[in-house]
């Protein structure tokens, strides 16, 4: 079998330089206790515009590089939502405003929301998995009215204070999307749901025959959600998932991001769940 087809029609420019372009940190917004959205503007010639779901390699000079999805596009500015959990991400989140960040990319496949006109779209995100989906939701909101399909956004987080982009969630609801949030554990006063995102799926309005799903979060969540959607009658090929592996080069040259036949920096991160990917996610890599 050839490499599984990836959503975007055009080929990802296969390799961009291994040397980063310089961007300046012009804004930092705290999203949760350890998560920040960083706004970068180009110092050098701007890189090609990213598509929702693609990622950049961000360099904290002297520390290292990390793969971070694009969470906002305000060309030529670009937003990345970063969770400070390792040396590089801590350095990125701690950089003073005006500091220089190295950027390479954009890399990988995207959500291809333009193909979803007329579909009932279910967007399901766990934790920081909402970051690479934010621009996809914005594109789908813009589609509303013209598109004809319904839009639902289901978000899971560990706790209410870990929910990303609360203002966006309200805005999307006002724009007509069906928005639901659930948490693993809630303090007193939380009136939303408690439990896994799959528990909310029954309440989500979609017609399985014309539904498409965009899923990003921890791999175990992706596996469970995709299986639940298939149980509800959604075609596996209509489910797109964003997968994560170690990324170093971004162009299929370094070998780190393999998942079976896939080089996820090149063939992913967004891949259709159907066929081989579903089987790959059932295998234990451990």
């Amino acid at each position, binding site marked *: 079998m050839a490499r599984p087809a990836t959503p975007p029609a055009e080929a990802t420019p296969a390799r961009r*330089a291994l040397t980063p372009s310089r961007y300046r940190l012009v804004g930092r917004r705290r999203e949760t206790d350890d998560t920040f959205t960083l706004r970068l503007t180009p110092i050098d010639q701007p890189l090609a515009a990213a598509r929702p779901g693609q990622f950049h390699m961000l360099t904290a000079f*002297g520390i290292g590089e990390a793969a971070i999805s694009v969470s906002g596009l305000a060309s030529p500015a670009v937003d990345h939502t970063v969770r400070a959990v390792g040396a590089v991400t801590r350095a990125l989140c701690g950089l003073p405003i005006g500091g220089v960040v190295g950027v390479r990319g954009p890399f990988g496949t995207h959500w291809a929301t333009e193909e979803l006109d007329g579909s009932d779209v279910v967007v399901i995100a766990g934790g920081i998995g909402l970051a690479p989906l934010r621009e996809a939701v914005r594109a789908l909101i813009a589609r509303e009215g013209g598109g004809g399909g319904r839009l639902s956004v289901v978000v899971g987080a560990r706790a209410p204070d870990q929910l990303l982009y609360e203002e966006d969630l309200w805005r999307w609801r006002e724009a007509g999307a069906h928005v639901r949030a659930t948490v693993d554990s809630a303090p007193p006063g939380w009136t939303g749901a408690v439990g896994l995102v799959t528990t909310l799926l029954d309440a989500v309005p979609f017609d399985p025959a014309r539904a498409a799903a965009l899923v990003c979060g921890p791999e175990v969540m992706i*596996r469970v959600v995709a299986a639940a959607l298939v149980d509800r009658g959604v075609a596996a090929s209509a489910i797109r998932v964003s997968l994560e*592996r170690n990324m170093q080069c971004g162009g299929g040259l370094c070998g780190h991001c393999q998942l079976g036949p896939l080089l996820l920096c090149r063939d992913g991160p967004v891949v259709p769940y159907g066929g081989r990917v579903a089987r790959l996610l059932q295998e234990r890599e451990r």
Partner: protein
Amino acid sequence: MDVRPSRPPADDWAVLDPQGIDRLIGALGRRGYRTLGPVVRDGAITLAEIAGVADLPAGWRDAQDPGRYRLERTESPAFFAWAVGPHSAKAQVLPPRDRVWRASAGAGGVEIAEAGVDAPPTALVGIRPCDVAGLGVLDRVLGAAGAADPAYLRRRAQTFVVVAECGSPAATCFCTSMGTGPDARSGFDLALTELVDGGGHRFLSRSATGAGAALLRAVGGASATTIDRRSRDGVLGDAAARIRRRLDRDGLPALLERNLEHPRWDEVADRCLACGNCTMVCPTCFCTSVEDTTDLTGASQRERRWASCYEVGHSYIHGGPVRPSTRARYRQWLTHKLGTWHDQFGESGCVGCGRCVTWCPVGIDLCEEVDAIRRADGATAARPAPGGS
């Protein structure tokens, strides 16, 4: 299996004596090539700079078995009486360590300077057909149109290949299974076949490129006779017949894909040290990592270095490595090399040089591992269902 050597058209064949090889090495140097060839170093045939035939390992042969490599003395005057040493051509086109860029902290912030590519014209003299095939595999991985690594392409374009067809395979070799030897078919500038028989010590030579033809003309040499060409057929036919190791490639990618839970993975993981030797000596293992370092001036640099899928950190993502167990890492290596490489690059990642078998400290033999899986196709190890902790 067809073990007859391929027989190119006879036009361009010449015969060089050992002095002719000396002139060849000298001519490469005069043309500006850094000339690398086989030399004895630290008890092994390695690839290093040579100035003439005096540097070649005449009188040496190698004895190889799973987990074992020894040089032995031989009475033969042959320069190429050995099979393969630990060095493939890989390091010449993909250096083990290579600077990517440097960045300095200046008044206006950060200044980045892309590192130049150190790529002197390099002639590889006496590498084996399996290693020429290995360069071809790397070309498909690192040099694919539109997806190429520019540094790789630069170095590759500067490489001149003089292949020595193989008359002395080791017990660990299986190029005949992979279709990569013992004769050379493509990917070289010049091919030599060493003959030591009643006709004397000589080298049947042929060119495959204009540069190779020009060099051969400059070196001179006698025309090849039918007897010389028959001698080559004999040497290569005997070599092919001596290769007993087989990798059964029948349906191999599918076999591996449907046996990811085979008990053999646990069994081999009990022996595997996850040392990564197999990946370092492999002529096609291409994985690299980048490392950033910094100094007291605030300057930083990024280097790219060889990496191995046996390193725990190779698959690290937040939360831990994807493949923490030796079982998972050995399985990743073998299923990639022989299976999913086909999906990614349209061919096998193995050229049958046998280095991973020889240089494995515990003698794990990938052919044997494949056979074991094939013998019990469909067997599964008892283990918890996916999704458990």
